[in-house]
């Protein structure tokens, strides 16, 4: 009994610690733009200054709605791409035999260990020579497939019973038909997990969009937010916090709706020693 209450106490304290920055973000965003900053003694302002949000959305130098649009487009395309490409590859590695299969899979895995700094410089130059800089292509194409996604889906496809496959083959189905009509539908939970991961990863990606976008119209939310901070000579914290809240909310929402997939997804990958 004591152990349980102690555990709850600790968890509560930790939860407080986790939520504190978020709460502070929201509280500050409601304070007047050039007034005093909140302290726990003066937590809430006399008036809630919701106009900070409107001010942020109206900034022409950093059009957040455009950033939102860009980010949605990129995230949707990347998720669609990964669902297709990673499931194809994952299925191939898991259930089909072909020469060099294990070597190739190891190759995919090994690339996960390469630090980003090594690949991003040449990737940037490749994208530049293709004329893709500052277009959606540069933001989407590099994310269309991921070794992590292939790994995840391969793990899942390995768990499918062979009998399903054998039965379908007896019925005369091609490999692709088995994948498309049996494997894919059964892997819906794993696909949902990958979609959740890929969505959040793309949504919060900062480094690569920072490199490949150079005009305001093409920036994503993360990059746009970093530009927002630059736009002020003296920092206007309530406005900055309002902008931060706007950027954080959509991803948090998606996470809360799909959070069970995250736990399961990480479990799927982590169990391999």
């Amino acid at each position, binding site marked *: 009994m004591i152990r349980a209450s102690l555990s709850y106490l600790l968890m509560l304290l930790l939860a407080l610690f986790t939520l504190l920055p978020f709460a502070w973000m929201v509280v500050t965003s409601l304070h007047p733009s050039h007034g005093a900053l909140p302290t726990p003694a003066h937590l809430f302002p006399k008036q809630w200054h919701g106009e900070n949000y409107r001010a942020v959305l109206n900034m022409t130098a950093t059009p957040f709605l455009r950033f939102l649009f860009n980010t949605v487009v990129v995230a949707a*395309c990347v998720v*669609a791409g990964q669902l297709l490409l990673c499931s194809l590859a994952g299925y191939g590695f898991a259930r089909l035999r072909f020469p060099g299969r294990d070597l190739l899979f190891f190759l995919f895995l090994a690339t996960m260990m390469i630090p980003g700094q090594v690949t991003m410089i040449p990737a940037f130059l490749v994208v*530049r020579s293709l*004329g893709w800089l500052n277009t959606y*292509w540069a933001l989407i194409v590099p994310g269309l497939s991921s070794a992590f996604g292939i790994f995840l889906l391969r793990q899942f496809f390995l768990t499918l019973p062979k009998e399903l496959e054998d039965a*379908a083959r007896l*019925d005369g189905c091609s490999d692709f038909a088995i994948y498309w009509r049996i494997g894919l539908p059964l892997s819906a939970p794993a696909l949902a997990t990958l979609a959740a991961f890929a969505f959040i990863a793309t949504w919060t990606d900062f480094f690569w969009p920072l490199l490949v976008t150079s*005009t305001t119209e093409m920036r994503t939310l993360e990059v746009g937010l970093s*530009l927002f901070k630059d*736009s002020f000579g003296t920092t206007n914290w309530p406005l900055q916090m309002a902008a931060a809240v706007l950027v954080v909310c959509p991803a948090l929402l998606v996470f809360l709706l799909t959070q069970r997939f995250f736990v399961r997804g990480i479990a799927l990958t982590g169990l391999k020693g």
Partner: protein
Amino acid sequence: MSLVNRQGGRHRQFAWLPALSLLIAAVGYGCARGQTEAETGKIVLHVADWGGASSDPNLNRFEQEVAAAWKRQHPDIQIVQEHIPGSGEYVPKLLTAFVARTEPDIISLDASSAAVFIDNHTLRDLTPLVRADGLDLSVYYPNVLHLAQRGPHLYALPADFTPMMLYYNKRLFDRAGVPYPRDGWTWADFLDACKRLTVWPRGASHPTQYGFLFENWMPGWIMWIWQNGGDVLSPNGRRATGYLDSAPTMEAVQFFTGLVQAHLAPTLSETQALGVDPFEAGQVAMKISGHWNLVGLKASERLRMEDIGVVGLPQNRRRVTVLYEKGYAITNGCKHPREAWEYIQFLSGPFVQQKMAELGIGISANRQVAESRRNLSPLEPVFLDNVKYGLAPWGARVENYAQVEDIGKEMIDEILVGGTPVRQALQDAARRIDAELGF
């Protein structure tokens, strides 16, 4: 087939996802390049400038007047202004745009970073255009025009500029009984004034009033080194050893860091404790700054214009100051160089120059416009008469100069905060600069 049919229904829920994404992508691709749509028939010129969107009503009015005047003269050429905010972000963001081939047509060029753009082959040589139109370049101050020149090639038309001068608070001088600085005054005069203007009450932890405000900003202290006959780099700008660690440079650095160490100027933390502008608050008697400072001081409630004096920098072996300048350049990627040339001539021409000079941020590079404003205030002639002593900043000639400035700033911090002896700090810094530049 029954097995397949049962599963077939579930897979259909995925079919729409790729289709929808492709649709979004297709729509998005239509807006892919993200350039402002030109109104039909017009040529669009993108002009980049630094500083975020301004809240200063005078500046906004100026921009509107200029835009309106241009529209009257050239209704077929549309100007799109891009402000790039963030201190220190202008050059990197522009370079990124050049790399991505999304650079603007015209850029504002700061003399202290001109070399970066010129040496990276990003700017168009204006000399053929000057010759074709027979533009008379003698309307500009020669040493100002020279800032954007490389031999016979001219890369920018100058707009406005300023020499760095010394501002002093007349009221504090009166109160201490110190005579105002004379034109041509020396380091000895300056040091004496500092001592007499520093007020340190008995028992206080630090002075309540300082003689001089030292800011660790290399563009603001390199002049001391020049005045003592030293320099930070070799004449070709490739080496620091032998120059940064030479005796004259060492003496100069010793002199101005000594001001802080002798408590005649506040330390960094003391400056931060004093608030935003200690000079305006009347807590320091002298500071070094450019013409732009007048704008803020004019709006000040604590300091009246009559209390402000300006004088050339105190001299030692040489009498010099440095010029900081802004000009307009056309990028190599500009597809309408003729129209861009029209626009920058307009910006650099007497009409806009007159309006810009009224803002008071800088002195017009156009000699006639600048001289016509000589008697509008008692301070203006002092600025004008010191222009001839102005040297070009290193950043106009050396591409990697920003790194030299970073190392220079760290060097001063090491001396003032870290307590490193001046000789050692200079030698270390010289070695580090050589490593950066020599490569």
